[in-house]
């Protein structure tokens, strides 16, 4: 009974994973014949000064968006774990950004941040009416903000689930011992959420490697190449410049970085009990 799922997953998941490694040693323009190319693509890509830049931007967005999303999601998760009715309503509203496609979100923010016709111009607020997507650092900041806007709701729900599973007796015992709210948060909530934090961080970090549609529609990698992350780099080399070989090299790098990060985060977890879920 597992065979149909296995078959389609192997054909469109496992075979391409091996295939991309093979393609990284070939020359192909996306239409014509595929020819062996030895190590030339690897040499081209690894010596291309564009690569360190894409890597840097990718990690910059990964780390900064993690640093923005984690504390806010954690706080929101703790807050939402309360059982009051209005919090349930808030949780419903929080989820809405996750229902929009990245394309829709990118288009919306592009219009909102337009220096001439967007929010800043409409409200006559000069600080909002900047050329947000036209300056390197502002564009990077916008990408991180929009990513957080889209995904904090999801992670706050994960944390909400985690918080609800912490035994209340721990808090009762702590308050008998005279621990205050802040002390309880750092001595009980955070340690108890260790696996939730690791799961959520893994999803954030590995997921950030796949930000493509959002950045593609929002900035197309610009201005210049200020937001040209690896996934975008791969698309541009492969499907715009028709250099599938070098693009495959980038794809292999994406897989390796993703796996390395997932393993690193799992090791940080230092336990096997939650390993099944950490796979996510």
């Amino acid at each position, binding site marked *: 009974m597992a065979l149909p799922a296995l078959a389609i997953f192997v054909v469109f998941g496992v075979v391409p994973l091996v295939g991309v490694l093979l393609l990284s040693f070939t020359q192909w323009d996306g239409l014509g014949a595929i020819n062996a190319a030895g190590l030339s693509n690897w040499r081209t890509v690894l010596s291309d000064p564009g690569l360190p830049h894409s890597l840097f931007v990718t990690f910059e967005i990964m780390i900064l968006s993690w640093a923005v999303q984690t504390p806010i999601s954690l*706080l929101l998760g703790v807050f939402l774990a309360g059982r009051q009715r209005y919090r349930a309503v808030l949780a419903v*509203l929080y989820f809405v950004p996750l229902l929009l496609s990245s394309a829709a979100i990118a288009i919306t923010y592009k219009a909102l941040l337009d220096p001439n016709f967007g929010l800043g111009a*409409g409200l006559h607020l000069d600080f909002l009416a900047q050329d947000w997507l036209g300056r390197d650092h502002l564009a990077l900041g916008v990408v991180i903000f929009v990513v957080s*806007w889209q995904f904090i709701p999801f992670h706050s729900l994960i944390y909400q689930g985690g918080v609800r599973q912490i035994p209340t007796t721990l808090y009762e015992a702590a308050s008998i011992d005279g621990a205050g709210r802040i002390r309880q948060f750092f001595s009980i909530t955070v340690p108890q959420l260790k696996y939730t934090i690791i799961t959520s961080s893994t999803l954030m970090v590995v997921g950030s490697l796949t930000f493509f549609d959002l950045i593609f529609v929002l900035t197309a990698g610009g201005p210049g190449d200020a937001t040209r992350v690896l*996934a975008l780099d791969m698309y541009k080399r492969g499907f715009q410049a028709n250099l599938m070989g070098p693009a495959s090299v980038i794809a292999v790098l994406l897989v390796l970085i993703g796996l390395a990060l997932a393993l690193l985060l799992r090791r940080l977890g230092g336990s096997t009990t939650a390993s099944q879920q950490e796979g996510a």
Partner: protein
Amino acid sequence: MRLIRRNWLGGTTGWLWLVIVLIPLYWIVVSSFKDQAGFFTQNPFALPADPTIENYRLVIESDFPRYFLNSVIVTAGTILPAVAIAFMAAYAIVRGAGGRFLAGVNGLFLMGLAIPLQATIIPVYLLIIRMQLYDSLLAIILPSIAFSIPLSVLVLTNFIRDVPKELFESMRVDGATEWGMLRKLALPLTRPALVTVSIYNGLGVWNGFLLPLILTQSPEKRTLPLALWTFQGQYSVNVPAVLASVVLTTLPIVVLYALGRRQLLSGLTAGFSR
């Protein structure tokens, strides 16, 4: 003992975040009912002075219905088979626990959770061309099914494991086959998880951008997110019309969410943070 648990920091963050979430959403909806003059001159947050459905008419009278239908076909065509085969696989994995083959299959699916779709897109493109499926809706559907499987199997195995063994045993004593148990016992008990993975995968496919971008070419094969992107270029001066199309592409998924919310949230919790 009753604890007084005030959480000012969390509360403030919570309400602040609500504002941050709602401002753009409110702005999209309000602006989509403004005419262009009103959009450019009015306060962005003011209700339309002269509400108009002209933008919606413009969008609906374009090729939008076709894109909408394409998205429906791709989404339904993905989740129905994906959930069915993932359910069968999850059932086999739980019931055949201990078998090395099934353990290996399960491990492969779990590993699949870490494979980014982007990284495999070039060989998938090659595969689709060789299968002569390029520029068809099936070209989007097949890889979408494959990439729905890992998470579906993870969530479904978690649920099927919770079905008490005794129930299976008593059905077996009554002479039920594996298929019978799958249909009459596991299926009804796993319904919330099936709804969860259907909505979750449906959401991903409905909003998918990369596969349609790379695996299709002609305008009549466009799905909604891709259509939005091209709309944006086409109507770049008519922002309200673009926003109306954003509303129209999101509306069906909001309705679906309203219907299946409880299962979705409980299923996600079960899948991620146990």
